[in-house]
């Protein structure tokens, strides 16, 4: 019995040692494989943007794929957005000329792969070489460069991957490339659509500022200089045309003619921003049509200065005084650039 025990313990012991050694071996193999793959990937980042072609003397430059792509796009980004505005009548006959959806998707996929490579996502060497070969076919066509020497194993493997695809049509190469990318990163397009919503998905690297030429500039938005001016919620609602909120204000007891720090009433603000419906509502709530701001101007002055004809006409019909002078002595029609006969007539 005792012998049996001993034997059992012994075999358990040996089993444990064996298991431990096996685990070590596996972990060594795995980590070695990882390292090895890493190194391989660094040399075979499968995307080289076309610009690499502009340097034929160096066809297998070590690919800092990310940097190259950025460069390609800062140089190559053409002007403007890529919203698909349809120019009427010009959308026929673009077959074979325009960048197809396939082009766009392929271009996006190569960029993605480069980014993934830069971020050290694991892909088998085999897949990398496949992607490399397909990329070369899609962008440069059949392999016509001489075979690298047998000593340059990576370069040779890449060359073989390209060369063995023969005269595959570029479209097929793009399709296959996309298939492989989709298999490796099933979610890669999801990431794309998330980001490119609203800019049409096809604008990879299309900076509106192109590589050369003029620049379209608009005003920088500057925070107000009139910092000391104060207004209440009711003025803001009038300014923004928020009728419901403004009604709530009035119903809660705020005066319809409440003045802000510049003496403006909600009606001034509504007219200034051109909200006719708001003006109508305020007048229907008995707002003072002829209330003056600190400069002596009425809502009709505002309408005249801002050339809001419909509103001005409405105010006049609702008893706005056309002869009222502001502190500078100007009547609304004095300030009006346009010629509104009904305002002139009223003046005379």
């Amino acid at each position, binding site marked *: 019995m005792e012998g049996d025990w001993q034997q059992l313990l012994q075999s358990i012991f040996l089993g444990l040692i064996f298991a431990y050694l096996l685990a070590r071996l596996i972990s060594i193999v795995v980590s070695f494989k990882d390292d090895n793959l890493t190194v391989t990937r660094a040399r075979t980042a499968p995307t080289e943007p076309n610009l690499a072609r502009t340097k034929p003397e160096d066809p297998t430059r070590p690919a800092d794929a*990310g940097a190259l792509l950025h460069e390609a*796009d800062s140089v190559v980004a053409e002007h403007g957005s890529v919203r698909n505005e349809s120019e009427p009548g010009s959308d026929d006959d*673009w077959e074979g000329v325009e960048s197809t959806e396939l082009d766009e998707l392929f271009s996006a996929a190569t960029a993605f792969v480069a980014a*993934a490579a830069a971020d050290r996502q694991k892909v088998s060497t085999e897949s990398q070489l496949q992607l490399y070969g397909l990329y070369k076919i899609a962008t440069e066509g059949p392999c016509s460069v001489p075979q690298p020497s047998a000593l340059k194993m990576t370069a040779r493997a890449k060359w073989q991957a390209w060369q063995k695809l023969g005269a595959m049509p570029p479209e097929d190469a793009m399709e296959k490339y996309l298939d492989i990318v989709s298999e490796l990163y099933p979610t890669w397009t999801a990431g794309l659509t998330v980001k490119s919503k609203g800019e049409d998905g096809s604008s990879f690297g299309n900076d509106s500022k192109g*590589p050369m*030429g003029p620049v379209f500039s608009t005003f920088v938005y500057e925070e107000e200089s009139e910092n000391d001016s104060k207004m209440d919620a009711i003025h803001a609602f009038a300014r923004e045309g928020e009728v419901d909120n403004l009604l709530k204000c009035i119903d809660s007891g705020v005066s319809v003619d409440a003045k802000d720090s510049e003496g403006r009433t909600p009606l001034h603000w509504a007219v200034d921003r051109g909200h006719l419906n708001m003006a109508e509502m305020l007048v229907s709530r008995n707002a003072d049509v002829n209330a003056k701001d600190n400069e002596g101007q009425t809502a009709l002055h505002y309408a005249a200065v801002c050339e809001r004809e419909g509103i001005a006409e409405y105010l006049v019909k609702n008893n706005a005084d056309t002869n009222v002078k502001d502190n500078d002595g100007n009547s609304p029609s004095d300030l009006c650039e346009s010629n509104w006969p009904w305002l002139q007539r009223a003046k005379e």
Partner: protein
Amino acid sequence: MGDNNSPPGSPKEADHDSDASQLAKDESSLETIVRKFQDSMPVGKRHTFWETQPVGQFKDLGDVSLPEGPIEPPTPLSEVKQEPYNLPSQYEWTTCDLDSEETCTEVYNLLKNNYVEDDENMFRFNYSKEFLRWALHPPGYYRSWHIGVRAKTNKKLVAFITGVPARIRVRDEIVKMAEINFLCVHKKLRSKRLAPVMIKEVTRRVHLENIWQAAYTAGVVLPTPITTCQYWHRSLNPKKLIDVGFSRLGARMTMSRTIKLYKLPDSPATPGFRKMELHDVPAVTRLLRNYLSQFVVAPDFDENDVEHWLLPEENVVDSYLVESPETHEITDFCSFYTLPSSILGNQNYSILKAAYSYYNVSTKTPLLQLMNDALIVAKQKDFDVFNALDVMQNESFLKELKFGPGDGQLHYYLYNYRMRNALKPAELGLVLL
């Protein structure tokens, strides 16, 4: 680009290997990569293309041992590549004759639909046909420098780039240069990467004329700007500018007050202020040459150039001068060019009419008053906005005349000509269209 984009395999990143592999199948990490990648797109700090070109390189900045002047000597003309660069097989080169109404219309439409937009894609330059002819037909122009790309199948014009010859003075040297402009690729071809080959082709054709330097501008930073200018805008029609989103109304600011703020007198204030005429060309040339001599980089205009670039042409360029009522001497000069833009997706307005400050010289009339008169005539001519760069002495009037800063920076570049130091905008006397 920072650390995220250091080359794969760099030792620094090896430590993160295991982390990366754990995340490999994780969706969110993929999105992170996509985002990281896209965020870094517009700010490429390495310029593989431009590093191969004879332009001032970032690494040489401030290296005083390098001489100013041409970076590469001219090569014998026989060694300039005689055949055009290869285009992708579906496309072919074409030379665009702007005198042909048909070709001019094609170029106009290509640019109108595909050229430069603002950051938010609300506006797109809409250079008129008359403007294009004016910009591309200066004295001594080369038709071969007006380069188009057509699709072989349907002959559609799909891309364009131009050069025009100019004599530009850099300090004491007068250098024959090409001014490169109007690089445009059809929106449907944006992933075809045509721009670099177009830049190389125009360079080749410039070389064939035995010209080895060029001047150009860009909204992006490339190696290496000789100066970086800022756009300023003066509202002439504030209500329209606000309605179309060119400018914004602060929450506490009223439209009424804004309109009053930008109001201008009905007519110019300076006695003797009048439109430039053909017989003024010699006097304006003298005035301008003398004025431009103070800037480090400026065009070397002769009378032919002045007649072409500055004699008023309807809807292209406006020039005014001050003729002394007593002596009839021409003492001051101002000019602006007309560059409308399409307003994209606004129901009420389709065109933004912008005047761009061109060359201005003041000797007797204060520059501030002269430019205010320029604003007044621009307003009379129904321009919506008056734009100016902070080049030459413009800074002295911008704020006072109620110009506001723009979001656009314009970088100026020279090709194959090294400047030891970057210039201040006020040292630049050159306006490219």
